[in-house]
């Protein structure tokens, strides 16, 4: 490990993970469980039953005050005016050049009160951007990350077990509500990053180990960040740092749907031009046709030409083959296109696919 153990931050569940024998690794400045018993088993548990993830490394920023809506319309890309009280919305934080600083979830908790969920590795950059833009608005911005432990409970049986075990009435998909968990105020959100039904719980850090243990005792399978990554990639959810960076724009990334240029967000002029003119590259999902596992950074080849680069690649436990997403020359980013991925010098046949790569059987 190149990162000193002492500089890594730990979630309220660190001891719980350690005692359970989880494999802990440095991730975005945190010491996080990458797996418990195995990524494949955890992945399948979420697809078929229920899994629980400690995502307490993710950040929370509170936005409050009469200027909240105007502030968020300027700051993030989606149309926040469409979010009713108790609503949730995916959005992007861009710089002036339409580079993606982070991708976020915005929860509307009250008329003039929002909670924004950030990625751990970008939280400080996000806070700086929030603070800078807040100067022009009648709004109060506060880093609320220390107030919450965050647990994602995901899978077809997640809601049923949660309702039974914690005696909770859960908000529907893409909605958020205030609840009591462990006799403390909590926020429950019908969101997730796995392609399965489920919720994310924002709870008092003090009670996090007890709640975690209660849910695990009720049969929810503890999962690490390894399974979180394979689950999200199968359903083509973007990962900032891989598929989104300050060097990529929302249109190339296929996130035009999360951008409402009419709101005048920072970077909206640039996004409007990209949307109108098209982009040279597009992010597209692909499947490896034979053997091989694509990895981030692998060149994509068409004959001798390099026509793209893999930004996320892994082994799909559901499909039992290599999958990934790559920025490709726009004319090639259509489902069915046959390409090759250069995996450390070996050419692996790949086919561009449609989203999601894993389709749930109904």
């Amino acid at each position: 490990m190149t990162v000193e153990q002492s500089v890594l931050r730990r979630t309220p569940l660190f001891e719980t993970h350690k005692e359970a024998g989880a494999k802990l690794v440095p991730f975005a400045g945190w010491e996080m469980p990458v797996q418990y018993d195995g990524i494949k088993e955890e992945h399948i548990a979420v697809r078929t039953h229920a899994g629980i993830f400690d995502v307490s490394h993710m950040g929370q920023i509170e936005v409050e005050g009469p200027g909240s809506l105007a502030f968020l319309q300027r700051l993030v890309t989606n149309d926040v005016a469409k979010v009713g009280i108790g609503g949730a919305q995916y959005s992007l934080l861009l710089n002036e050049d339409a580079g993606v600083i982070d991708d976020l979830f915005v929860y509307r908790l009250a008329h003039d009160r929002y909670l924004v969920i950030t990625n751990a590795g970008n939280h400080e950059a996000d806070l700086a951007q929030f603070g800078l833009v807040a100067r022009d608005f009648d709004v109060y911005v506060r880093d609320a990350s220390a107030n919450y432990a965050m647990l994602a409970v995901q899978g077809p049986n997640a809601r049923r077990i949660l309702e039974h075990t914690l005696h909770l009435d859960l908000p529907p998909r893409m909605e958020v509500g205030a609840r009591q968990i462990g006799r403390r105020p909590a926020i429950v959100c019908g969101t997730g990053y796995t392609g399965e039904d489920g919720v994310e719980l924002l709870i008092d850090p003090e009670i996090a180990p007890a709640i975690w243990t209660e849910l695990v005792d009720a049969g929810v399978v503890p999962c690490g960040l390894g399974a979180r990554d394979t689950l999200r990639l199968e359903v083509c959810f973007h990962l900032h740092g891989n598929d989104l960076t300050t060097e990529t724009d929302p249109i190339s990334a296929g996130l035009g749907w999360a951008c409402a240029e009419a709101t005048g967000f920072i970077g909206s002029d640039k996004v409007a031009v990209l949307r109108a003119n098209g982009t040279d590259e597009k992010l597209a999902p692909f499947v490896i046709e034979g053997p091989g596992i694509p990895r981030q950074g692998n060149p994509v080849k068409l004959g001798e030409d390099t026509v793209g680069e893999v930004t996320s690649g892994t082994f799909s436990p559901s499909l039992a083959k290599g999958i990934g997403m790559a920025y490709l020359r726009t004319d090639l980013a259509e489902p069915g296109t046959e390409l090759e991925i250069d995996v450390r010098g070996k050419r692996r046949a790949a086919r561009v696919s449609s989203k999601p790569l894993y389709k749930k059987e109904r």
Partner: protein
Amino acid sequence: MTLAEASYPEDLKYHAEHDWARIEGDEATLGITWYAQDSLGEVVFFEGPEVGAELTKDQPYAEVESVKAVSDVVAPVSGEVIAVNESLSDAPEAINADPYETGWLVKVRLSDPSEADSLMDAAAYAASLE
């Protein structure tokens, strides 16, 4: 699925890069150690060299991949590949479940049998992991 407890058979020779060799006359069977498979996690892909390929001691000759990671497999001895464990293409998890028997990777004909003298015995290898 996996061997829960570390094990390092006495009849094998070990390389510091977490590879083992079972030396029988001028031939050797090669694989990765319990420690290597445990560090890597569930192996989901192994593609061996071709029969006839020349392995050079201390140089990588193949890769094993888990869901998250790729790891080089280093040759503990030099020699010509005379067999590759083909069953691993369908069942690479054998490398986790049984790293010293059904999870073997390749067999080689040794080009310099004296190289084996530089390898560790089980006790020395286990001590190196402390």
